[in-house]
């Protein structure tokens, strides 16, 4: 069994890992649909979407490894960290194929996260870090398609049959407590904004709401009121689902160190 790596976590490294880990873990959950989606065509569509996110994660983790300076490459960062050293949004680690979640949760999550990433990429386009700006510019095109594809599904299901509308509204109720974290600032955000590395999370709220307002209206969905619950995945404190996800993600590299195709 390969031991976990230790990281020098400067605010910049944390900031980039938060984005990279969100893409990585989101991709991992979407990959779980492979071979199981309701129809073959959407199975391929979800796999494509996950692979786009995985590509974004690779670029971001590679860059985070360079910023960190300890010689860790994308694979080391993806496979050999302990749970508390992953900084993804809690929302993307929640199960999509168990625990009451279904296809509606999947498309809704893709829609929520794509809209958030779209705002983030736009903010990163003017980053002082030119590599980060370049990664964001490339990802923008992919994310635009993800948002369109998922938003169409949210509308199709939300404004569909009674059963699909009920399921989409239930998915929204499940996801909503975790949405607050998307805009929850801390010292890492403040440092990133001050040094023009990238936007603080709180500044994404308005453009995010603006981009989804029409979608939710067309889907006849009413977002619930915001509660007091806060998730803290971006700070390394995860849900009970994260450990299981990492076991599956990591076990091959842990059991066969350096294994390649």
């Amino acid at each position, binding site marked *: 069994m390969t031991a976990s790596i230790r990281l020098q976590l400067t605010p910049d490294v944390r900031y980039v890992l938060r984005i990279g880990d969100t893409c990585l873990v989101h991709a991992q959950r979407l990959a779980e649909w492979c071979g199981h989606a*309701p*129809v*073959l*065509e*959407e199975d*391929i*569509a979800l796999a*494509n979407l996950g692979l786009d996110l995985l590509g974004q994660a690779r670029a971001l983790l590679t860059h985070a490894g360079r910023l960190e300076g300890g010689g860790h490459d994308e694979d080391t960062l993806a496979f050999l960290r302990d749970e508390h050293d992953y900084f993804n949004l809690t929302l993307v680690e929640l199960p999509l194929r168990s625990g009451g979640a279904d296809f509606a949760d999947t498309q809704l999550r893709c829609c929520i996260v794509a809209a958030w990433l779209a705002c983030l990429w736009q903010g990163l386009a003017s980053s002082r870090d030119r590599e980060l700006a370049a990664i964001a510019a490339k990802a923008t095109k992919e994310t635009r398609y993800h948002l*369109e*594809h998922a938003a*169409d599904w949210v509308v*199709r299901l939300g404004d569909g*049959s*009674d*059963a*699909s509308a009920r399921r989409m509204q239930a998915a929204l109720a499940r996801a909503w407590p975790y949405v607050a974290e998307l805009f929850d600032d801390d010292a890492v955000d403040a440092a990133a904004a001050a040094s023009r590395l990238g936007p603080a999370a709180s500044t994404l709220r308005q453009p995010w709401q603006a981009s989804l307002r029409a979608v939710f209206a067309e889907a006849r969905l009413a977002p619930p009121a915001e509660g007091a619950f806060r998730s803290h995945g971006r700070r390394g404190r995860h849900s009970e689902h994260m450990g299981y996800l990492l076991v599956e993600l990591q076990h091959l590299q842990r059991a066969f160190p350096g294994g390649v195709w």
Partner: protein
Amino acid sequence: MNASNQGPGAGTTAEWPLWEVFVRAKAGLDHKHCGSLHAPDPKAAIQLARDVYTRRQEGTSVWVVRSDQIVASDPADKAMYFDPMEDKVYRHPTFYELPESVNHM
């Protein structure tokens, strides 16, 4: 949709309609038929055609058309429709002598 895990309401929707997919590989070429797929509506058909048939850079443009909108010749008419052309070689423009100045005909 898979009826077994869809719960209440399952089975109320018929299978999605079938669409034929045409992909243009690059500007200037024509759209070529490359397969078919199921999709609930035109926009989903275009998106899924993109996802299923252009994921390895096969295309720059896609068309979809509902399969039931295509009018096709009857296979039973094949002999009547197409066999008579077998012995009409004179319909190929191979019996003309081209002037030297015409290069690429």
